[in-house]
């Protein structure tokens, strides 16, 4: 039953264990197991400096996973993240260098995010192309744009100090990137649980035809979701530029699968309508820790891809809606 996805009516005890909550709980159990596994592989995972590193990495994937969670909740997917990240980083830092103004970088990143989001929404909503195929094509197009723009020469960049601070700095004991992620996560969870937007997202994910007949403006919600997703990726592009102190072609290539895996591990089936960002947070941490574990185990790139694919498949199995 998908109806469990609606916010729990107020007369129920807040701690009642719905199937929904069990899934989220399950993803946090996986997180604990994976962290235990990491500690077993290497004692380094007990030290704050290692954990801090993972939290920064988790922040990057986590912010992309916000948009991905929205997209998956309406039963779609957004695979245009890698080159949105790269294009946003290259355009923003390069234009900031040319015009010698920090705010330009942020304006350009927002522009790229909104533009990509609108392009995705046009294809997925207006033209009814399956989002997986369409957003992959958009990704290819963006790759082309990035290549043409940079002409395969490392562009002169100016990293906005704010982006550098957000990626590398500290707020109190916590990394600034993590703090930023926490704020974004709170906004995302609030938007999904408390706002009308969230209810429309779940309505569309559960049954688009019913949502349409109930008068939901599907186009607006699709557009909002894809624009949010584009904005998240573009923001991460800027953060990554700050993190590496440069913007380069292919910098977003590692960010295609991890955010999706995070959402699925977080308990949201790719068919949409079920799940939320609380689970995705656990999923993000699981993915980041798994990556770190595979790195410290010295597993080759090929084996890493195989493990990731198999893991995602296993989770798709575990969460499948058995209706056919």
């Amino acid at each position: 039953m998908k109806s469990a996805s609606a916010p729990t009516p107020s007369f129920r005890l807040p701690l009642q264990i719905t199937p929904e909550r069990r899934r989220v709980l399950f993803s946090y159990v996986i997180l604990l197991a994976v962290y235990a596994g990491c500690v077993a592989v290497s004692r380094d995972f007990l030290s704050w400096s290692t954990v801090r590193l993972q939290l920064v990495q988790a922040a990057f994937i986590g912010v992309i996973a916000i948009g991905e969670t929205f997209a998956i909740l309406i039963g779609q997917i957004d695979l245009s993240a890698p080159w949105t990240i790269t294009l946003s980083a290259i355009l923003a830092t390069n234009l900031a260098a040319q015009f010698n103004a920090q705010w330009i970088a942020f304006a350009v990143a927002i522009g790229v995010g909104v533009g990509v989001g609108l392009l995705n929404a046009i294809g997925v909503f207006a033209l009814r192309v399956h989002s997986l195929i369409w957003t992959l094509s958009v990704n290819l197009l963006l790759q082309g744009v990035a290549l043409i723009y940079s002409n395969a020469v490392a562009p002169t960049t100016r990293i906005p100090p704010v982006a550098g601070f957000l990626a590398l700095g500290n707020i109190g004991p916590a990394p600034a990137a993590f703090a930023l992620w926490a704020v974004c996560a709170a906004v995302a969870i609030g938007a999904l649980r408390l706002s009308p937007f969230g209810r429309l997202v779940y309505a569309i994910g559960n049954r688009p035809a019913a949502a349409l007949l109930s008068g939901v403006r599907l186009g607006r919600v699709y557009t909002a979701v894809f624009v949010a997703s584009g904005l998240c990726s573009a923001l991460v592009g800027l953060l990554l530029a700050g993190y590496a102190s440069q913007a380069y072609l292919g910098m977003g290539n590692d960010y295609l699968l991890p955010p999706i895996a995070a959402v699925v591990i977080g308990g949201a089936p790719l068919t949409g309508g079920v799940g939320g960002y609380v689970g995705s947070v656990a999923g993000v941490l699981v993915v980041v820790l798994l990556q770190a574990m595979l790195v410290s185990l010295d597993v080759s790139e090929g084996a890493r891809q195989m493990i990731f694919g198999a893991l995602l498949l296993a989770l798709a199995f575990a969460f499948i809606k058995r209706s056919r």
Partner: protein
Amino acid sequence: MTPAESRLAALRRVPVARRLADRAGPLSCAVGLAVVVGLYALRQPLILSPFGLASLANVSVALALAAVGQSIVLLAAGLDLSIGGQITLINCVAATTMGASGLSVATVVVACLLIGLCTGAVNGLIVAYGRVEPLIATFCTAFIFTGAALVILPRPGGAIPDGFAAALTESWGPLPLSLVLLAGAVLLVWIPVFGSPLGRYIVAVGDDAESARLSGLPVRRVELASYMLAGLFAAVAALFLAAETTSGDPGVGQIYTMNSIAAAVLGGVSLSGGRGTLIGPILGSFVLAIVMNALGVFNVSAFWQNFIEGLILMVVLGLGGLRLLAAGNWLALFRQ
């Protein structure tokens, strides 16, 4: 003719406009192919020589094979995003194991075709029996296949004997051998399959899986078979690519996933299943591949190629969407 028979005949008669609409994909592809080759020949007349035709065929045949495989899955209302991964894996296996002797070449060719059937069967089992959505299932297996290829061959390398390469890529008189390979694959696989009940079952399942199930068709086995056939075509494409480049490359298959879908859609195969022809996707792949090849020949910068490729994909996919929009009202789009 009795009145009943004439009524039946009238029912069977498909209106001309409808028949034309069904053939719109292949027809427009044929026109497009003529235009593309014509423009190409204006700039580079040598392209009409036997050598030029062979080179055009060589750049197109791998995509055509992949697109035919993709079309079989699409006809059954599935989707195979792992075509590129399968091609990559089999290409790497072929390049690392194919020795120089005739016996080892023959063994490896047969083994590669079997691997194609197996990878296809993995997809088919997960989709048909595991009930995972085709899109998700093959998206995941694509990573597994590509990862396996990287394990076998981390960077481009391996070796393909010259004799094998020549047998697939050179010309026999004016006839490019790659076209013979394509025709052979079609004659030995597509024609028998689609002349048999299996072919009709594939189309029936793709048209409406529920009706097919209620009519007593073995829906799951049919879906499994469609993925296995796609894997077989991917294997042939991979062997051809190995012959064309005389080496293996763990990145070789990547572009074939999206391009095979685009070629199939361009050739009039419906993404929602049950409708399509054989000739459409083949012509569609020739148009796509020759356009991409021409970009390089006409000195279009390599940096523009991704952009133009993405743009072509989006326009083709968008056109398919427009056709869907014309088909019915908004609610019909959600009915499944």
